[in-house]
């Protein structure tokens, strides 16, 4: 008897629950996809009800919209909530739909010299107060800027230090020192900016400010300097044992416009003949040379791979690139 009533109670409780949820449950064949960060829901089910409605699908559209919105609201109501100033607020997750940016990703700026040093030493910026007590004027003044606390250029009395020339103007000396400091700061700021934008400093083209430069860089700088004359380096003398620079000749050679007419005619007719002929023309010497070069390259690459495999287990990706280059040549082989 009792068992019977317990079962009845359980069944009744289940029915009640189902009834409660009936008002908010929606049956769909395919589950919707939700992106709650964007308050977005995607329904992949084909809209058959709307399709069968005909010319005025308004009511069906609204029913579909109601169902979908109900599902979205169900999801939103399951988010963790908190009470903020008598309103119930849900915390949204991050949006999952990837959308394109409106501007490109900012390039990471290189650190300034001070930032590099601070990072190295582990120096953190100390929080400083805005105003400092100034004894002289007896008031709180700013740390730097207009009417600052300890401005040594504004003093009205300066004692001549022991070893200094009595005729020297100490006030002018202080002002001069300040100007030099300002100029140095400005120079450093511009240098940091140039480093950030990677532009060349106009002072000494090709020369590094600290003087530490590699042999190749110096050589390049010297060559550039040699050519930067009015006659493009033609009358520059060379040092006794200096060799001529490699690769400074003409890169492409063109035939003169009015040259040998007979030779031109011959080459053009030959070209037409080659184009008309059905059989491909194979230049045996060039083909064999190319084949030999390719084989050499392959062997060299293999040797390098072996030696590098000995050094580290995973091969560097640069070899994949080399392989690509060779395949490209293989395509060009047929001439």
């Amino acid at each position, binding site marked *: 008897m009792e068992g019977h009533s317990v079962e009845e109670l359980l069944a009744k409780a289940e029915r009640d629950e189902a009834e409660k949820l009936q*008002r908010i449950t929606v049956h769909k064949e395919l589950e919707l996809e939700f992106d709650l960060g*964007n308050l977005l829901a995607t329904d992949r089910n084909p809209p058959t009800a709307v399709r069968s409605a005909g010319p005025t699908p308004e009511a069906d559209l609204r029913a579909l919209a109601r169902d979908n919105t109900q599902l979205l609201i169900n999801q*939103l109501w399951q988010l963790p909530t908190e009470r903020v100033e008598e309103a119930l607020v849900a915390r949204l997750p991050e949006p999952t739909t990837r959308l394109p940016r409106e501007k490109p990703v900012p390039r990471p700026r290189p650190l300034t010299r001070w930032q590099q040093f601070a990072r190295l030493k582990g120096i953190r910026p100390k929080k400083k107060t805005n105003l400092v007590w100034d004894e002289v004027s007896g008031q709180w003044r700013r740390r730097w800027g207009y009417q600052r606390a300890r401005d040594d250029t504004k003093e009205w009395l300066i004692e001549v230090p022991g070893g200094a020339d009595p005729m020297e103007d100490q006030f002018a000396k202080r002002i001069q020192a300040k100007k030099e400091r300002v100029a140095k700061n400005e120079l450093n700021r511009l240098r940091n900016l140039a480093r950030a934008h990677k532009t060349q400093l106009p002072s000494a083209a090709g020369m590094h400010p600290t003087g530490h430069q590699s042999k190749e860089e110096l050589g390049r700088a010297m060559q550039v300097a040699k050519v930067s004359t009015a006659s493009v380096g033609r009358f520059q003398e060379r040092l006794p044992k200096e060799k001529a620079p490699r690769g400074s000749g003409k890169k492409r050679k063109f035939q003169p416009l009015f040259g040998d007419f007979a030779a031109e005619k011959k080459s053009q007719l030959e070209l037409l003949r080659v184009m008309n002929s059905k059989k491909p023309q194979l230049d045996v010497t060039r083909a064999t040379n190319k084949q030999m070069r390719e084989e050499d390259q392959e062997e060299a690459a293999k040797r390098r791979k072996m030696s590098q495999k000995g050094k580290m287990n995973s091969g560097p990706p640069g070899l994949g690139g080399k392989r690509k280059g060779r395949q490209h040549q293989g395509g060009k082989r047929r001439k």
Partner: protein
Amino acid sequence: GLRKPKTKRAKRFLEKREPKLSENIKNAMLIKGGNANLTVTQVLRDVVLTFFLNFLRKNITRPFEDQTSLEFFSKKSDCSLFMFGSHNKKRPNNLVIGRMYDYHVLDMIELGIEKFVSLKDIKNSKCPEGTKPMLIFAGDDFDVTEDYRRLKSLLIDFFRGPTVSNIRLAGLEYVLHFTALNGKIYFRSYKLLLKKSGCRTPRIELEEMGPSLDLVLRRTHLASDDLYKLSMKTPKALKPKKKKNISHDTFGTTYGRIHMQKQDLSKLQTRKMKGLKKRPAERITEDQEKKSKKMKKH
């Protein structure tokens, strides 16, 4: 060349427009093209009213032929989304929606408006400007072709509003519903009515509120794959960092892994039992025993 800002205000203005890690909200420009008829103008005006996007302009040349004026205006106003309305015999009631990347046109999709019911024609209560709408896309067409996929992404971009981390549940007031069917896209906006249901989650009833449009896809000008990929690139700093040495099992228990150096077990510090400590007399006898053992061996 760039002009250096001379005032703090100008500097702040330029900084707002710089490329950043996490970007500003996208603004949209609404442009009336040549021969914009009443329908198209009304659509644009409705969009201005319902959404907090802004900036209505007049008369630029056709976006599909010449994009330079669009790009110029986008640069001047710092708007990366645009909607261009026009009307001519060949393309009646034309609407071009597009977005920009780095002030150059990324995607542009031309839609024809077949039926349009404006905000003022529907005599229901409206909801306040600037609320974040809910977006629903129905229909399997939205995944079939690349055109439709880009259109969906473009519509999300256009209508989603600012990204917020918390939202007031009572403030969810309206929903935009896009249905793709038979080559047409039905755009409807409904106001949300929350009714009592037996449990915590309310039952939804909808009331048609805002502009309703029946759209047809016309021409598209989509960005090439690599430009699209470039625009989708997320900076490394924004990617969530994975914590190493932490794993979860199916029951929800979190496991952590600690790496330790090798321990010398003979020097292990265990508990000291004071009662078992060797007294000095005992230690001496032990030593003597050990010595005698050694002598025995020899």
